[in-house]
């Protein structure tokens, strides 16, 4: 992977000027490369990684992982039905999976009722959906490589040879 991406994936706020210094390149070249990545869709967007357990407001969200069994369609396989599912705003992630079911759909809702009514009234009623199994998420420990804990104190002694 290009080191520019490695740096940005770790901290998207790193400026092109700083990346240029780290990689001994010209800031202009770094900016152009980043533009290119954005245009090609390699970099989709920049966002903060939140620990939502610490966000205390009425908007706190409940998450569920839903296994979905599907009857594939002629010519388009799973793609068409997947599109119908992931287009719902309640769906935050959607993956095609090998194994005993087909789609893994991550749904976010205000509470257990909003999530279950989405499953019962929208998802399950779709023509090609054969069945669903819903798992409510109880606690998040690690997400996308980030461990969701308070920053640990520095354990190194401040000065050593």
């Amino acid at each position, binding site marked *: 992977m290009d080191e520019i991406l490695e*740096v940005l994936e770790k901290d998207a706020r*790193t400026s092109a000027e700083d990346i240029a210094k780290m990689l001994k390149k010209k800031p202009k070249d770094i900016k152009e490369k980043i533009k290119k990545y954005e245009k090609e869709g390699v970099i989709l967007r920049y966002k903060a990684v939140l620990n939502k357990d610490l966000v205390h407001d009425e908007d706190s969200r409940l998450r569920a992982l839903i296994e979905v069994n599907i009857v594939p369609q002629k010519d388009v396989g799973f793609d068409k039905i997947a599109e119908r599912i992931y287009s719902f705003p309640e769906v935050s992630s959607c993956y095609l999976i090998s194994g005993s079911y087909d789609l893994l759909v991550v749904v976010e809702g205000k509470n257990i009722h909003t999530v279950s009514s989405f499953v019962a009234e929208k998802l399950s009623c779709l023509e090609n959906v054969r069945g669903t199994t819903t798992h409510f998420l109880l606690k998040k420990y690690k997400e996308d490589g980030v461990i969701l804990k308070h920053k640990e104190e520095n354990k190194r002694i*401040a*000065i050593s040879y």
Partner: protein
Amino acid sequence: MKNIISNKVKQMQPSGIRAFFDLVLGMKDVISLGVGEPDFTTPWPIREAGISSLEEGFTSYTSNKGLYKLRLSVSRYLRNRYGVEYCPDEEILITVGVSEAMDLALRTIINPNDKILIPSPSYVSYGPLTELAGGIPVYIDTQKNRFKLTPEQLERHIDDKTKGIIFNYPCNPTGISYSRKELSQISKVLSKNNVICLSDEIYADLTYDFEHVSFPSLPGAKDNVVYFNGFSKSYAMTGWRVGYACGPKEIIAGMTKIHQYTIMCVSITSQMAACEALHVGKDSVEKMKREYARRREFVIDGLNSIGLSCHNPQGAFYAFPSIKKTGLNSLDFAQKLLKEEKVAVVPGTAFGGEFKDYIRISYASSFDNLKEALRRMSVFLKKQL
């Protein structure tokens, strides 16, 4: 009461900057660029191996030389990496870090008043360990040649009492390393004069501009070399205290004699973890190295642009810039910088009395810390000049 302490210990030079270290440790909100260890935690698979070994009940002594499977892994690693053959039975000793290994080697080869050459600035323990072993450290000041030892300079310092040289590359504190050609020239001078090379290559995996060349892999060098390496820097395992020495079997046998009476063996938990490091660690080493390499560019560029001229270090995670233009000596500079801007660096004099015009900066710190530290140093320098 006055005769309790031996003359030898009384004569040892105490570190002149202990008081400065205490000052740093007593202060809050300091950004420290004074740390001589990685800012990564030991990769999880290695930690997990240590934990499992405890769960399985591995809590005993090991062979004095160290676990056979660890010596075998070290032997294979050195063959694959550098093409050097060391027999795990007789030519490898597992030690409590390179620190212990260096002490053992010096005590094994030194007769009273033998001279040991030490290119300086140098890591803090080399001189005192030489003196404790009854030898005489002969420092070779490398300042004039951008901190690189030249073959001519080396030859000038050798006489008939010269027993060995402690050669450390990439170097703590300068980050300087040597190319194959430079090493070959040095090796020839050493062989010609029968000087044993104690080659401390603990930072080998953190070499950025070229492939690290191991001293015993040089043609004709191996019989005259004790090679030192360990797990501290490559695998972020400083607190585990595992290192090793490889060399001619007579020297390793001598070192093992001292080791078996003083240490017996390295902690088995650490040895088990170290085995895992050699098996799974390569990817994490590469990742850490890329990260350090980026920080190096950033820090060297930053130091030069705020007006502290700095040579380009090829390895380790240190920069050794000159502070001469501030007119301050290194200890005053470090104290003032700490008090006024809360940035800690190590005065150059820690690594040899002559280096009062330098400070050591460690870039084993997060990018945000480095950036903020450079900003504070820039403010500080504007006030001095």
